[in-house]
């Protein structure tokens, strides 16, 4: 394989299926060094604000959604929202990541009001509404995706998170999230956003029911779109977390677990619920392999994020030598992953220390990867 040429789908598949991880890591580490020779690893101080957990999609891998009637269903009121933003700014935060369920009663007016009321009060970047939400808003208000994005942008939306991509393969989406938008819609939202000058990220959730071919299909789709638009700032691979989800627990969704203790589903995981689903979460070695391959495959995306939320700080630190150059967000609040039973309580100091102990300089950045503060 020519290491200076773009990796083909076939080559990518071979690297994913049977390559030596240390060799792959070394290669990705070299590419990362070339792209980011300054030996700095960045992170953003932001807060995840989930404005509602009521969702009509009910994806099988998700532990966060509720029905409107559920006793722990919620819609955040404005006072709570403002308080969360104030706290974020007080902690040096520059961005809020605003995502929520697809609420059956909201149309675009709700979102316009939400954005305007934030923007008229706070100087903060609103990184909000992943493609499934954008498509849902468009649908509810009978608008095109482009119109919807234009309106939201005018109301104050700055950039779009890359969530909801899961695996961009409709075969996999049919199992994971049959009601969620198809791959083409996800890509269409991102393409339109990029055309309007909005930057977005891209994610990939793996380790559920996908095959290696699906991962390659995903990377290929992202790379192709980036060739056309250049609008992705970063790629974020992360692993499916089986706790408290329909997909991870024999179809027995554990409702209301947010209020009680999160049950340990470790012992229950051995039941295979969906065809092809491994009873185990993706291991660290699989994570590092996909991460390294992502760095190599996505030669047109500048930043690759390590996922400390799903991997813990030790592996996230190791990931900095397997292709990652960014530590993502400090996640002042993370409701969604915590609901699936994974909860690493991590402070900004922990993140800075991990970056430094791994041999890098640590720096806070903004949404667009401009360095704000070095530590």
């Amino acid at each position, binding site marked *: 394989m020519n290491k200076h040429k773009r990796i083909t789908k076939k080559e990518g598949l071979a690297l994913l299926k049977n390559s030596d991880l240390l*060799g792959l890591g070394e290669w990705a580490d070299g590419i990362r060094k070339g792209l980011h020779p300054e030996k700095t690893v960045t992170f953003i101080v932001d807060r995840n604000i989930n404005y509602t957990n009521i969702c009509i999609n009910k994806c099988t891998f998700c532990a966060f959604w509720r029905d409107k009637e559920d006793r722990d269903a919620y819609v955040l009121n404005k006072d709570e929202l403002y308080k969360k933003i104030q706290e974020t700014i007080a902690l040096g935060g520059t961005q809020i990541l605003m995502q929520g369920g697809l609420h059956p009663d909201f149309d675009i007016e709700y979102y316009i009001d939400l954005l305007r009321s934030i923007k008229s009060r706070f100087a903060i970047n609103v990184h909000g509404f992943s493609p499934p939400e954008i498509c849902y808003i468009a649908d509810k208000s009978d608008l095109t995706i482009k119109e919807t994005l234009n309106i939201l942008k005018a109301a104050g939306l700055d950039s779009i998170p890359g969530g909801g991509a899961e695996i961009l393969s409709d075969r996999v989406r049919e199992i994971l999230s049959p009601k969620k938008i198809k791959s083409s819609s996800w890509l269409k939202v991102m393409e339109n956003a990029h055309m309007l000058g909005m930057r977005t990220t891209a994610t990939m959730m793996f380790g559920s029911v996908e095959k290696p071919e699906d991962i390659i299909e995903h990377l290929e789709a992202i790379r192709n779109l980036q060739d056309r638009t250049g609008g992705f700032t970063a790629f974020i691979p992360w692993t499916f977390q089986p706790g408290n989800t329909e997909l991870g627990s024999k179809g027995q969704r554990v409702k209301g677990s947010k209020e009680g203790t999160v049950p340990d589903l470790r012992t229950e995981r051995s039941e295979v619920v969906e065809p092809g689903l491994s009873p185990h979460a993706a291991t660290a070695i699989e994570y590092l392999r996909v991460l390294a391959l992502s760095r190599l495959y996505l030669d047109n995306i500048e930043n690759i994020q390590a996922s400390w939320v799903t991997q813990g700080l030790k592996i996230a630190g190791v990931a900095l*030598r397997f292709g990652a150059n960014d530590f993502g967000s400090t996640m002042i609040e993370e409701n969604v992953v915590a609901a699936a039973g994974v909860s690493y309580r991590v402070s900004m100091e922990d993140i800075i220390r*991990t970056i430094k102990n791994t041999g890098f300089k640590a720096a806070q950045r903004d949404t667009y990867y401009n360095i704000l503060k070095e530590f």
Partner: protein
Amino acid sequence: MLAKTKNKVLSGKRLSKEDAIKLFETDDIFTLGKLASYAARKKNGNKAYFIKNIHINPTNICVNRCKFCAFSRSKGEEGAYEMTIDEIIHKLRAMSYELQPPYSEVHIVGGLHPDWPFEYYLEMISRIKKYFPKICIKAFTATEIDYFSRISGKGIVEILTELKRHGLDTMPGGGAEIFDIGVRNQLCPEKLSGEGWLAVMKAAHKAGIKTNATMLYGHVENYGQRVDHLLRLRELQDKTKGFQAFIPLAYHPKNNEIGGTYSSGIDDLKTIAVSRLVLDNFSHIKAYWIMLGEKLSQVALLFGADDIDGTIIDEKVTHSAGALSSKGLTAGELINMIKKAGKVPVERDSFYRKLKVKSQKRDVNE
């Protein structure tokens, strides 16, 4: 930079102190990992071992106050506990199904209890052996052996011989910490010295008891002190051949007097790899997942480790100091971790003998 060391490893030459320090200092973790993998493969092929085991900590009451320890309590202090032998037997039986224990080894370590006589430990061992004759008993660190000698007035050799006669099979490698006296004075001034630890192990090996060896790293020590520790173990192993596995233990900073930080994942991997390369006379390097975390332990299998310990069930000591790992894993989870690392899982007994494949198969499907 590592070319000279690399040649030494590939030609089977022993590494020097300088080589080892260079390996710790290198930024080239990939070459380090590949060399350690090469060394591991020469010893154990593509195998990675695990064991079904259970931990029993009979008491947390301890006369020592090691500064890195979050487990120990004084007698009468809140949270202090002591188990009767009946309670220990009950716990072991409660874990068993129709008297078929789901483990092949009991790992017993505890505090240095101010009142328990040596006879109590002998009775503990012999009663466990009586109830579970097929289970291997791996018990008491060198620190405890030294303490038994002091409270009973018997010599180390006599203590070891009596324990063995009552059913002790092997000994764990705890209490080694870092041998260097300066580090030891900071960490655990009351504890058995490095020389004392090595002397107990030498006596155990002579008495026909196989043991492990450990090193607690990531607190106040430097690379030179880690290497000195490894070299002293290598020297004793040359003489006795009694060590089975070396287990580097990552320091945990919570609920103790030293504080500080968790070791980085890269440091953990380096320590595993350097240990594999320096300890050329040790058959096994263990990535103890309780202390490294499940995820890092799996990656350690690509950096020279060939053992990830076991199912454990109810670990207490490291969890007192903020371990982020689970308290136990199923055999199925261990097997999956090993297979996904591209290694061949081998369920072993306390002496690294392969257990029957049939029982492994059943457990995977449990």
